[in-house]
């Protein structure tokens, strides 16, 4: 018997159109806030909304290419793997995310 709450499942977040291009939305989850990003080619990424540097909300940063710049101290974080761009070091947790029929799903 698996406890449902501990098994990662795909959950619907919102229509893709509700995430601004080159922007993000904050999703409240049982595991804390998750930032779901959308870049200008409509790729989506999900990271824990917590910069490895000083915990800044990455969801509020400027998105460019596959990167986001943290709004607190301008660390650049890679969206695919949550890693800080050198020479900075650190990592924000990533979550699987997908778009199906115009809806964004997050696995958590």
């Amino acid at each position, binding site marked *: 018997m698996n406890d449902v709450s501990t098994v990662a499942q795909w959950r619907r977040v*919102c229509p893709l159109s509700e*995430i601004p291009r080159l922007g993000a939305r*904050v*999703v*409240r*989850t049982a595991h804390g806030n998750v930032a779901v990003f959308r870049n200008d080619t409509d790729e989506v990424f999900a990271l824990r909304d917590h910069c490895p540097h000083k*915990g800044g*909300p990455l969801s509020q940063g400027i998105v460019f*290419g596959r990167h986001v710049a943290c709004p*607190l101290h301008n660390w650049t974080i890679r969206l695919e793997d949550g890693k800080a761009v050198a020479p900075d070091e650190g990592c924000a947790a990533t979550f699987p995310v997908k778009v199906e029929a115009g809806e964004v799903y997050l696995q958590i």
Partner: protein
Amino acid sequence: MKKMKLVMVGNGMAGARALEELLKIAPDLYDITVFGAEPHANYNRILLSPVLAGEMTLQDIMLNDEDWYRDNGIKLHLGKKIVRIDRVARKVVAADGTEERYDRLLLSTGSNPFILPVPGKELDGVITYRDIADTEAMIVASGKFRHAVVIGGGLLGLEAANGLRLRGMEVTVVHLMPWLMERQLDKTAADMLQKSLEKKGLRFLLQKETAEIVGRDGRVAAVRFKDGQEIAADLLVMAVGIRPNTDLAQSAGLYCNRGIVVNDTMQTFDPVIYAVGECVAHRGIVYGLVAPLFEMAKVCANHLAQFGIGRYEGSVTSTKLKVTGIDVFSAGNFGGGPDTEEIVLHDSVGGIYKKLLIRDNRIIGSVMYGDTVDGAWFFQLMRDGQSVAEIRDHLMFGQAHLGNAGHQGQNKAAAMSDIMEVCGCNGVAKGSITRAIKEKGLFTLDDVRKHTKASSSCGSCTGLVEQILASTVGGAYTPQATVTKPMCGCTELTHEEVRKAIRAQKLLSIPRVIDALEWHTPNGCASCRPALNFYLIAAWPHQAEDDPQSRFINERAHANIQKDGTYSVVPRMFGGVTTAGELRRIADVVDKYKIPTVKVTGGQRIDLLGVRKEDLPRVWGELDMPSGHAYAKALRTVKTCVGSEWCRFGVQDSTQMGIDLEKAFWKMYAPHKVKMAVSGCPRNCAESGIKDVGVIGVDSGWEIYIGGNGGIKTEVAQFLVKVKTKEEVLEYAGAFIQLYREEARYLDRTVHYIQRVGMDYIRKQLMEDPANRKALYERLIFALQDEKDPWVERIKGSAAHEFEELSI
């Protein structure tokens, strides 16, 4: 798509830097093969002196080790010398027979030390000072022998002599000219330098020409001069200059004069063959310092990457001697002539000498000894060709902003110990900076900012960091060229060029700019996008597309983000005047939304701190007050005193003047925050002297001051004009602010803008041309027409997604 083949011959600093730059902007364009004659990968040649002096090890000075080449998919042939280029078959051939085809060839063969053609030059113990092998030979010799002679009293010779002395040898420096470093220093500075070096135990023989190197059993034993004098030598270092290594290029029929001749895109006479570095003659000049070589590398990479922008137009170079404890700086031309003037400060007892050479109000050269604090600043003024007419009377006393509040008045990097804090924002000590520069091979201020964070926040320690950089890397140091500095890594264009293109080509959106100006990145970066967004709306008000995703979060959420991710709200109170009703509403909002901190700001407003983002629209709605724009690069506050309405001394109604100014210009976005103040009498209680625009009421009217700053770089505002009426105050203030909006670089405050263009220019624009002043003012009024209060819009529900969280 088959990749093109790029072959590089020579694996030194210039070539490797060109590859780094190329991989940054076009990582998949070429299959790259590199041939290096030395057995080592790319190391930092300019740090050989500290290695010789025992301050660093070889491991410390590697810039790109073999792993770097492997990780970037570059085929590296070490210890292989290319002996032939076949331009018809487009292939290179190495001495051991290795062949490689190329589509593009990059020559970076560097230079060879010049050997004096005297008898005995091939004896054991006669070496040059150029590479790792030479350095190692010197270190070994210093352990076995006693008498070293260095021929050549230039930069390299002196550093070699100093290193050998530190390793315990008796060192004599022999120099042909009447004084040391004659190409960088005048006689006064050179004499002071010689005295300091003599104190360190070096001996000098000037105006001596070597006739013969005398050997014993195949090894050097003495040096004989043309005047018959002879001195003992067990080790002889020749440091009399370098010759560009053009043999290979010449054998392939490429045109060479002093070096391999290249054009402004670093192409030789065969357009598929490029050349960079010391082997190159560009516009007839051969460069031997790292800074220009890196500039060439960048241009070359740009062209190889098929970007049509970026040209190398020659460099102005500076020199610094890397001998611990001795400060010498020289840049440009110091000889002078009939049309040049000199400013000299000389304290022979204190060991300080500074000379500036000026032509047409521009610095064309400087020599400094003993106190080189302002070397970087003078060099920058010189490179930028900035007029010094206005600052001439205090030019010699330097740039007084180095190490202001919070830096313990430190202004000499050399005098600081390693544990002293340089950057007060990020807590970076001098030792961390010098270590990073040496170990990570950093050369520019940007490098240091990236790796250490020093000078990357408020910038007030920038001068200090530049000094540390200059004294650590010596001649390789280049201050940031402010005139030609590209906007960011996404483009080669400067802020000015971008603004001009936006106007000329009527570009109305960021994607249009990125497309039309060939940005290297698909959608810019966090540094250029906010700037572009402002440039667009400043150039084309009501027409350009304002992109909220290109604005910093504060301007997207219309509140200031705080360290914990909550926001602060500052409602606008025109001129700092409020009412009981407003205060009651503020108090009620604080209670209802449990706002933890209420604070009075320096700009006479009330700040509510710790508001949750989703509460913002409701907080604004219940406050029912206009946005204070305290979060924006915009007009923030107009500070006032009570003026003639209440004050016994007030001669003008400053409160009303402040309200009028604020009502006229609020909602105005700018390159940076704009602060104003109005005082009702010369006692200046509103502190108008440190505001972007400060107004002071006097009995007969108003005085207007501009370019003041109370923050990072405390700067007293400069007098602009005295006027009689309120209308004139509005017109002059508005016209100046509009000029700033149209011409300043994003994130430059008015003080920086005025420093760049000069107060004379501002006066010309505003005072000598009333029509232009009126037009500027009207453009500002037009831009502000129908501008909405962002809070009111959001209370109505616009951009709701910005404030609503999702849940699953």
